């Protein structure tokens, strides 16, 4: 097997291990659409990064975090329903990103790569980002696990019990922004949320505790990466979408298996 394929597996597995446990919280907090919005804003981050000559991963994290903050502010004004706001921000940032990228002749060919991922072009530097950044996110997630879980169940109850819920909520959003930045190369901005949500949804039936669900979700995601990249190798299908298709197939087969109680 070629080097680029080994790097692809290493990158995919790294993203899977981080995205799936975080995705479990996205599922529990009913924030799938929020994740999508941040993911779409990543393209704007890429465009700005190219324009200002800033490291793309950094630009993506910054833009996604700003969009998260903007959303928090707009929510407190209550002029529009949250799902409407999310729709505006998701597609607004995606469209602005696309338009801004059109000014960059050199990247026009790469656009598909940003939208759907380009896992076969992963470099050693990307791997450092994925395993380093991903490791940081996992450590942070473990660090805030209990208060995050508590505020996911009931935010005000957690607050009365002394959990700093606003800080936790913003930290969680930052973690999502980080995962988007590192996962963009693998599955692309349009499919990132699927790597968070589908493995978690597939894991639900086999779990009795939140920790179990997060761990099983990570396993499912790794399996999806292996299957998807394998399919891509043998049948020459696009790698990112193949991984997502594999995740969907895992989810569907999970539904037909008996529930563990």
């Amino acid at each position, binding site marked *: 097997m070629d080097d680029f394929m080994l790097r692809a597996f290493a990158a995919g597995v790294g993203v899977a291990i981080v995205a799936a446990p975080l995705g479990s919280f996205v599922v529990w907090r009913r924030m799938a659409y929020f994740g999508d919005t941040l993911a779409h804003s990543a393209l704007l981050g890429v465009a700005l990064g190219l324009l200002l000559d800033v490291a793309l991963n950094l630009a993506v994290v910054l833009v996604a975090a700003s969009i998260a903050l903007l959303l928090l502010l707009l929510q407190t004004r209550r002029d529009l329903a949250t799902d409407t706001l999310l729709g505006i921000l998701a597609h607004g940032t995606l469209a602005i990103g696309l338009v801004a990228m059109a000014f960059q002749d050199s990247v026009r060919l790469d656009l598909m790569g940003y939208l759907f991922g380009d896992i076969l072009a992963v470099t050693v530097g990307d791997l450092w980002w994925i395993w380093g950044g991903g490791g940081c996110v996992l450590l942070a997630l473990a660090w805030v696990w209990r208060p995050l879980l*508590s505020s996911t169940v009931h935010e*005000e109850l957690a607050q009365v019990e002394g959990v700093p819920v606003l800080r936790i909520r913003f930290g969680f959003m930052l973690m999502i922004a980080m995962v988007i930045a590192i996962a963009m190369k693998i599955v692309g901005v349009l499919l990132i949320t699927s790597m968070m949500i589908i493995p978690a949804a597939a894991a639900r039936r086999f779990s009795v505790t939140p920790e179990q669900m997060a761990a099983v979700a990570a396993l499912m995601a790794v399996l999806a990466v292996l299957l998807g990249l394998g399919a891509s190798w043998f049948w020459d299908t696009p790698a990112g979408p193949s991984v997502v298709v594999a995740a969907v197939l895992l989810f569907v087969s999970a539904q037909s298996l008996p529930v563990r109680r």
Partner: protein
Amino acid sequence: MWLPRPDTAPAMPADGATLIDAARVKTLLGGRTVLDGVDLQLSAGEIVTLIGPNGAGKTTLVRVVLGLLKPDSGKVWRRAGLSLGYMPQRLQLSENMPLTVDRFLRLNRAADADTFAAVVAEVAIAHLLRSPMQQLSGGEHQRVLLARALMRRPQLLVLDEPVQGVDVIGQAELYALIARIRAHYGCGVLMVSHDLHLVMANTDRVLCLNRHVCCEGHPESVQRHPAYLELFGMPVRDGLALYRHHHDHRHGVHGDVVESGDERHG
């Protein structure tokens, strides 16, 4: 969490049993006055019930007392180091979250093994510990929430609509349980209710709220107070007592209790 600084808080009330002393609390939400000049005192061992129509500001007052919401004007004094137990309205847990009752009760890490066992026995939920939270009936759900609040050995128990989604017999039992808990732990209790009649037997004082305090006092006297009668439109006159029964729920097709949202008197 917002806590009053010593320089802004009123002088400590003379009565050493006082847990909460809120004075002239005014709260605006979205430009609308939700609470206007509300006073509320609560002492250890006392059960105070807030009643009032929808939108009267009951939950807002609860949030002010808990420190979740800072009033726009007025002062809230809390006994220093006051430990709070909070029972929110029904949880909206995602079906996708695997969470047993046992785990839910341990989320706050506050209780030692003895306290845990004592509380579980007190609210009679030992048989539910391994059940998923999402499969509890209305009454079970509320008892579990109450248990979570008690795990912190609270000096003040704050209950927002504790009998929500519970059938009438269960409601009376739950109110009696709350009264027993008060007697056992000696804690103060502040609770929100929409039905004076069910809560009457188990409350010391009633605060009838409609953005301001309409009337306040012993449940028997509030029941006859003109402001209460005007608010709830329930004429109870000597010699002309209408037969009433209360439904605050209806039954679903499987016989489970379903919230109906409005209250009917017939």
